[in-house]
């Protein structure tokens, strides 16, 4: 079975950013996404999200180019004012065309 190597972008952010971030990743070329509820702490400490049901963990499998774009966009717009982190991994998928 042909496995294709792609990038998995994982974004952890305050819950109220969910819709915003989904719009962003879709706009930047993600064909799909998966959200799991999460909670956590980082350098920013207290967060309004404590009020809006914690954090979210947003995953998208995308091409390396799109991954690069997403991380860039996050760094420019979100990292400064919001409790957001993101990391990249390489993953192997079946039906690679589905994601690009």
């Amino acid at each position, binding site marked *: 079975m042909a496995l294709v190597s792609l990038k998995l972008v994982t974004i952890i952010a305050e819950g109220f950013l969910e819709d915003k971030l989904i719009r962003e990743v879709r706009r930047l070329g993600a064909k799909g996404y998966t959200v799991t509820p999460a909670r956590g702490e980082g350098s920013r400490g*207290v967060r*309004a999200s*404590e*009020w809006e*049901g914690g954090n979210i963990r947003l995953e998208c499998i995308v091409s390396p180019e799109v991954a690069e774009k997403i991380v860039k966009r996050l760094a420019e717009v979100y990292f400064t004012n*919001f409790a957001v982190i993101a990391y990249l991994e390489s993953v192997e998928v079946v039906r690679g065309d589905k994601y690009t």
Partner: protein
Amino acid sequence: MDPLELLRINLLSPAVLAFALGMLATLVKSDLKIPEALYTTLSIYLLLAIGIKGGDALAQTPLSQLWGPALATLALSVVTPLLSYAVLRRRFGVIDAAAIAAHYGSVSAVTFIAATAFMQAASQPVEGYMPALVAILEVPAIVIALLIARRGTGGTGSLGEAVREIFAGKSILLLVGGVVIGALAGEGGMRQIAPVFIDPFRGALVLFLLELGMVAAKRLRDLRKVGAFLIAFGLAMPIVQGALGVWLGTLAGMSVGGAMVLGTMAASASYIAAPAAVRIALPEANPSYYLTASLGITFPFNLTLGIPLYFYFARLLGGG
């Protein structure tokens, strides 16, 4: 009843004791955890139930009685955020001052409920249409505060989006939606839903305050961070705004009970609508300031000492 007796009644009420129990749970690091779904459900329920009760009353209130109190409420929603902002600017930057002012200008639904529960316990009648005033008081203050911040700085967040957020926010949506449902339900409809939206109301408040106590206690840990000035603000400003509210309410011809509840509304600081809007319109504002002040300081103060105090004010002015 003398003031001390009223204080006792309030402090020993199930709602306040549940709040204390919640704080205790956090302080002793209990494994007690209120499921987030329960917290969300209760806040949806309480907002909708307030609205329905208010709508039901509204349907039986002649408009002539309404405009006075409505104007008084609007006045509060303009004056209180400006007042708070002016005070806060002595220590905080434009952004943080405006963010905190938005919270103190708006209203806390739970504090409102606690006030009405207390009035009932003190068998003091309250105008039924109060929830409509809650809806009026909630929004303008937030918008004003955001506008101030916008004038003062460029501001990265989107104001338009924030305003949409406020009106489409669950808090206003459920409150106003409930008012409509209650106003149209009629006697038959109300009888059908009373076992869910009327009778369990105060009991549900007890469960909700258990959770709020746990959250408030977590906030307390940040007290050191926020500094003496904000703590003093969180204790003094409610008294000022409360007195103002009672006074305007009395001027508007409201009963002692009504003026007391309006005062409590003015004294209370929002923690649902305001944080959501501020987070979007003023992301640079530091949440630990406004959340700690409204939830960790002002909410407990109003719940315990404020409520009897405002009643005392109301009786002085209204001579109840």
